[in-house]
């Protein structure tokens, strides 16, 4: 459907292209950043669209959304936000069409109330990290030894909040090779005067018996409660299960995906980064003899996860199906066929 004003339409196109570019280059600043940028674009798209029925709007938003998603098909967050916004449109329409009779009245109030609801959702996302961090005193106790892997902004905020409440605990940070985000995490925690130890992935098995709990972040949560998280998380969770340590996942609710990770071959599940950290370009002659891979994500099956700490409080993994049902409309979500 053609958008209204020519200038505005061009501006929107440019903004979308810019974001898609950013996604392709992978220069975005974490999942919250991606979520907020997606939602900002969607608000613009909705406000610039002229529509007569809610079906037109849904179709338009879905079409524009899939253009954004094409920038990085493995970035579930974009899909999640789009599906959530589509659900908001459906809900708002149902509410308004019940209250009003004439179609003119409906379409008049619909746009304003959708934008208001979506903005509310945006505010919710912005507050996610703080909300989760505020739960820290319930889950981090005095003298705890907590193991984490890599860097997650949410987990970092959680630890810092616990420390600010005067709780004394020790954090073991697994460095998360080959990108070593754990180094940054360890540095940040140490600066906040938290007793921090940096370990390598190989040491997880050794330290696990003296750990109280494992607290990790995740890229997204699949619809069956499994995690799509940074590589190394699966082995960490398996080892935690072996010694019966609870794996607590800190994740905002917008990371909850309505998609299933059915098989390892799932078309858009994983992403591969440059393996330059594993093998130097200097050793390029080796490249013809060995294959070097650097996948970014691990799939962690749901039975290894103890609970999810979200901005709606703690949720058991077995409850994830219910949240998916509340957040998304099945007509908006089509399971990817692997063809």
């Amino acid at each position, binding site marked *: 459907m053609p958008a209204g004003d020519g200038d505005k339409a061009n501006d929107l196109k440019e903004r979308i292209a810019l974001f898609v570019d950013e996604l392709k280059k992978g220069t975005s600043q974490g999942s919250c950043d991606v979520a907020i940028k997606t939602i900002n674009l969607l608000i613009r798209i909705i406000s610039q669209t002229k529509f007569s029925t809610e079906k037109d709007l849904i179709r338009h938003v879905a079409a524009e959304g899939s253009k954004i998603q094409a920038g990085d098909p493995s970035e579930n967050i974009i899909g999640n936000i789009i599906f959530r916004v589509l659900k908001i449109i459906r809900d708002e329409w149902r509410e308004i069409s019940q209250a009003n009779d004439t179609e003119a009245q409906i379409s008049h109030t619909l746009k304003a109330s959708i934008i208001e609801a979506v903005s509310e959702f945006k505010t919710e996302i912005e507050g996610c990290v703080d909300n989760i961090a505020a739960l820290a005193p319930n889950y981090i106790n005095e003298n705890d030894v907590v193991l984490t892997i890599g860097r997650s902004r949410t987990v970092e905020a959680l630890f810092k909040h616990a420390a600010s409440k005067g709780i004394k605990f020790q954090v073991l940070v697994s460095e998360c090779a080959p990108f070593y985000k754990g180094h940054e995490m360890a540095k940040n925690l140490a600066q906040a005067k938290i007793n921090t130890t940096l370990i390598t992935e190989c040491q997880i098995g050794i330290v696990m018996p003296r750990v109280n709990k494992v607290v990790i972040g995740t890229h997204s949560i699949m619809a069956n409660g499994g995690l799509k998280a940074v590589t190394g998380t699966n082995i960490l969770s398996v080892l935690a299960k072996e010694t019966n340590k609870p794996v607590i996942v800190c994740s905002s609710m917008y990371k909850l995906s309505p998609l299933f990770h*059915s*098989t390892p071959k799932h078309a858009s599940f994983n992403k591969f980064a440059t393996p330059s950290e594993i093998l130097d370009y200097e050793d390029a002659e080796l490249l013809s003899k060995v294959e070097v891979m650097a996948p970014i994500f691990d799939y962690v099956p749901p039975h290894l996860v103890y609970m999810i700490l979200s901005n709606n409080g703690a949720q058991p993994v*077995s409850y994830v199906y219910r949240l998916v049902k509340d957040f998304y409309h099945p007509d908006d979500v089509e*399971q990817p066929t692997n063809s």
Partner: protein
Amino acid sequence: MPSHRDGVVETEILTNFNKLMDENPDMSPAVAAVTTLVNLMKKSNAGTMSELRDTIHKAEEVMLTTDYSYTSIHSGCDQFLRYITLANTLDTNFQKIMLQRGQSFMDKMIKARESIAKLAAGFIDDGATILTHGHSRVVLEVMKTAANQKKRFTVYVTESSPDKSGYQMEKELTKLGIPTVVILDFGIGYIMEKVQLVMVGAEGVMESGGIINKIGTYPIAICAKQMNKPFYVVTESFKFVREYPLNQMDVPDRFKYRASKLKSSKDLSKEHPIVDYTPPEYIDLLFTDLGVLTSSAVSDELINMYC
């Protein structure tokens, strides 16, 4: 109503039901039962709600005397009654409304299999190897859909004693051009390491999220769990039953033995049960017309239906 009249209605129900089952080998007993009920309602001149309810209950009892799956007929009829009686019963025109609701329930039942197939086929990869147990119409439909999506996959199917329905499954899958191998029931342990996933149907889904299915499903589920292979159940939501078995012994006898066996046999401990109960912890996902569910979601859906 005089008793000789009852007898006439009974035979009519039975012929109607048996005819449906004979003429449509693809039809689930639950669908045939509900179709019979709708036909019955068209003819019935029940003047009150409770009379209609009685008629349906009686018809259900009659159909349950056949040797078709008790679980399936029972759940279908139960949900049917629940669904049609949710309408506004104060309306004097209630017969018409109920019949409409009954028909819409039946239509939904018939469409269910197609929508499940679409959902579940996404979980079959190109190059997959799948183990299934005996003959299941809905599993067949899923595989047909996946094959139509140009996916190449191999199916291992157990021969499934005592009726050896696995050979029928093999025949139908081969007709669709899907490479199929029949294996011994005891061959599941041997074959499991080659298999990517297990996909079975169900006669009934219990409130716990566990399933009642053809005998032999439980050991397959245990074996799959042990070897960390996903165990998927494909089933229509009209097979959800309000029962909560705690173990095999706790499953009602009516579910475990054919009606004719129950009547003729004095000592059930010497009889072979035809179904077993697979507890929810062995089931990874259920593909239903209500969407892809985890087993904990089943009780939620049942509460939605009945409360």
